């Protein structure tokens, strides 16, 4: 299949007067249409920088990024950042409003999304009146409203409590899978990456580089996160990734 996004030797450094902090070093990977790709890595390794480059918020210092300029990117942040001065309905329409795309068709699409994800009854409520899981779903609808060809998920569940996180990540995973969206997820939670993604890429510590790649495949349907967690292959994947990550973490110790 034709990749919809491909990165080649992308490097990026942050600069300030005290010096240069390399964040990404020669990252290369491709994403095919409909694929769900997950990145895991130690905290502060430059994962968010990678998404910012893909979203076009940052310019890479070297390397090339090929992505169809006509396609849209949807970006989901760690916190829902729903605006308290707007109702849920006004919040989810924000993207259309900014793109001056408030056509009847688009609005109907958003209303349909609200109904599908069980938020229609809450559309006139303020964000603070909703639970954490509902807010995150509203944030997803806000992202989906602009019909992105590529979804970027920057630790979107890390601000939720454990129970909500399990259900919401399963919900959102199913939504993305059912709509056939291409998605890139960034997380520090290995089980989240293994249950949701088709492929997991392990990044090294800063400056991040692609260290290990693991295709994920289950014989069962991925509808419930619990049934996946109970499979043997889940355990194998988990151990493989854990080993890769802990190698990286123990490296500085051996150096000392």
């Amino acid at each position: 299949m034709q990749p919809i996004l491909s990165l080649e030797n992308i490097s990026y450094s942050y600069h300030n007067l005290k010096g240069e902090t390399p964040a990404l070093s020669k990252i290369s990977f491709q994403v095919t249409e409909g694929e769900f790709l997950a990145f895991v890595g130690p905290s502060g390794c430059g994962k968010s920088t990678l998404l910012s480059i893909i979203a076009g918020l940052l310019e890479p210092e070297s390397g090339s990024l090929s992505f169809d300029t006509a396609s849209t990117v949807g970006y989901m942040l760690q916190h829902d950042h729903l605006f308290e001065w707007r109702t849920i309905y006004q919040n989810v329409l924000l993207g259309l409003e900014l793109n001056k795309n408030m056509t009847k068709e688009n609005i109907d699409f958003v209303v349909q999304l609200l109904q599908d994800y069980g938020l229609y009854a809450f559309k006139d409520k303020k964000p603070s009146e909703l639970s954490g899981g509902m807010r995150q779903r509203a944030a997803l609808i806000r992202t989906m409203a602009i019909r992105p060809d590529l979804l970027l998920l920057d630790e979107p569940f890390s601000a939720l409590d454990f129970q909500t996180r399990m259900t919401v990540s399963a919900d959102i995973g199913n939504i993305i899978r059912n709509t056939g969206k291409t998605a890139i997820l960034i997380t520090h939670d290995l089980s989240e990456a293994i249950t949701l993604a088709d492929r997991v890429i392990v990044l090294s510590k800063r400056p991040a580089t692609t260290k290990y790649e693991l295709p994920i495949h289950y014989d069962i349907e991925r509808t419930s996160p619990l049934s996946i967690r109970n499979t043997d292959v889940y355990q194998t994947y988990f151990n493989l990734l854990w080993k890769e990550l802990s190698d990286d973490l123990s490296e500085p110790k051996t150096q000392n």
Partner: protein
Amino acid sequence: MISLNQKPKTDLTNQEAFILAHRKHHHRIAFFRLLILLLFLLLWEYATQAGYIDIFFFSSPTAVMKYLYQMILDSSFFRHTGITLLETVVSFLLVTVLGLFIAMLLWYQSSLSEILEPYLVVLNSLPKSALAPLLIVWLGTGSKTIIVAGISVAVFGSIISLYTGFCQVDDELLKLILTLGGTKKDALFKVILPSSVPLILSNMKVNIGLCLVGVIIGEFLAARRGLGYLIIYGSQVFSQKASVTNVKRISKDVPPLDGTPRSSTVRSTNLSHAGESQSDPPCAFINCLYRLITA
């Protein structure tokens, strides 16, 4: 609240008892607030009536009320208050609009704010009453000067605090706007302004007070109407009286020129009576001169 700890003997529910105690508490607070004011007024009145303080320098509540009543009767009270109120409101509205507009501009053009920052700090810390005489020279002695004086007191602080508030808005919110395809202008109008509404409101509360201060300063120096004018008029009338006292005192001092100096005790009592009036230095000067001559 003590009453919460005591079990009510009536058959009120806990909620009703709570509301009752809550009301009692608020009534007590209001009572003591009023009591302080009343005690102060009574003490003031008593001290002047009993002669502990001089009514000429300290006035008294009844004298103030009488004067106020007189001013209401000849409607000068409403004229002066109305003028000051109008000037304050106009300068407040201008400060709000100007402050908001400039703070938005500074946020939008961050290099502009870097360039202008030291100027804003200097202008904000400049004593505005020092500017007032210049304003009179530039703009005359009308309402224009007074409104500009009001603006000058409030506008720079308003810009600084609004701009600081704008900069404290979470960067992630701005990132959200950018990821949804918005521009920096969208971020300004959809995020910065709506999220700063509480800040803008509290800034307005501060501004109305500062504008009043500026307007009064302006009226001190350049007005024939308004509360500031009344204050300065009052103090000038007072100093005229003081001058008259001093003139009388000088005339008492003059006779000794014929060769019989008065005792210094008389002079010192006169001095203490005159207080801090402006005519003191010339008086002392004349005394010195007189001593030099007679020595």
